[in-house]
């Protein structure tokens, strides 16, 4: 599938109707989501024929992108039932087979090494400090091959240090810097739209270095 085509399909997905500020629910825009998954597939081969999980999937944009790019199985995990309902509709609309689990990612009980790749747009940790790092810690525990994640560029040094030193990643690499459009979703947003700089990261979990299937 071409990048343009992927972006256009993702642009048609239904997004949050009533976003919840405490969960930092911001839709992952089609521009960013398509580039994220396209890079994972075409530069690293981390999507097609793999088991891919989307942590904090919201309305399922990244999960959908993974399924469209030929992931063998896709699992979306989110704490919010309303988002999962929309995600399920989005998947059905495109006739994609995606499994969803309602769970707090922090409390996820996960057995075995089924998940190859995790893609996620975690909460940036602006409202609830450390939420972004909780996601990353868990993702690096569960994934056997790679973790793709978005983090604010302003936290780059912190993310790198935490991933390598605290979460045992064998590599942590910023693939590119992107502009994340945050539309005026919440009352506390004073400007109509702001864009913030975010990094697209690729992490490799240490315990599975070199293990490729």
């Amino acid at each position: 599938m071409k990048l343009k085509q992927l972006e256009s399909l993702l642009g048609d997905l239904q997004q949050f109707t009533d976003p919840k500020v405490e969960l930092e629910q911001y839709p992952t825009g089609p521009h960013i989501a398509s580039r994220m998954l396209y890079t994972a597939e075409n530069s690293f081969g981390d999507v097609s024929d793999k088991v891919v999980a989307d942590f904090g999937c919201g309305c399922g944009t990244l999960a959908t992108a993974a399924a469209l790019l030929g992931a063998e199985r896709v699992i979306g995990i989110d704490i919010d039932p309303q988002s999962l309902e929309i995600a399920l509709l989005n998947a059905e609309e495109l006739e994609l087979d995606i499994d969803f689990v309602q769970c707090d990612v922090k409390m996820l009980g996960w057995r075995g090494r089924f998940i190859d790749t995790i893609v996620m747009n975690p909460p940036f940790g602006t409202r609830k400090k450390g939420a972004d790092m909780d996601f990353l810690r868990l993702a690096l525990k569960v994934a056997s091959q790679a973790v793709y994640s978005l983090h604010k560029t302003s936290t780059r040094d912190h993310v790198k240090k935490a991933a390598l030193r605290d979460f045992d990643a064998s590599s942590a690499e910023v693939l590119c810097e992107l502009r994340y459009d945050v539309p005026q979703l919440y009352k506390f947003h004073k400007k109509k739209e702001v864009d913030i700089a975010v990094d697209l990261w690729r992490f490799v979990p240490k315990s599975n270095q070199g293990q490729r299937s």
Partner: protein
Amino acid sequence: MKLLTHNMLTSTVKGVVNGFPLRIEVEKTLEKQVDFSADFLRNLFYKVDWKALVEAAQTMGYAELPEEAPDSTVLESEDFLKKFHYALLELHLEEGNLVCPETGRKFPVTKGIPNMLLHEDEV
């Protein structure tokens, strides 16, 4: 919910040691067709907890899988792979509960989505 997902999920209620496998209470099952990939199944075979899969499939009314974990020679059998494929990927729990084996806590499955959320006093 596929039994593949069931094979990964564990209960994390406070005080639980293993929390696996979750017992299944069936209200409604579904069959959903999934593309067959022999290579993918062969890969999964080594990761699946066999006993948990067999018991889950039986609870859902499917008893065609061997009770004891077969050795890897079965991976050459198309007949076996088809049964494995069906049990793991095509058989769905649409409505029902997953039950923590240690505490009995029920996790409801609605529209095929298991709700593993814990209350504050369970964390």
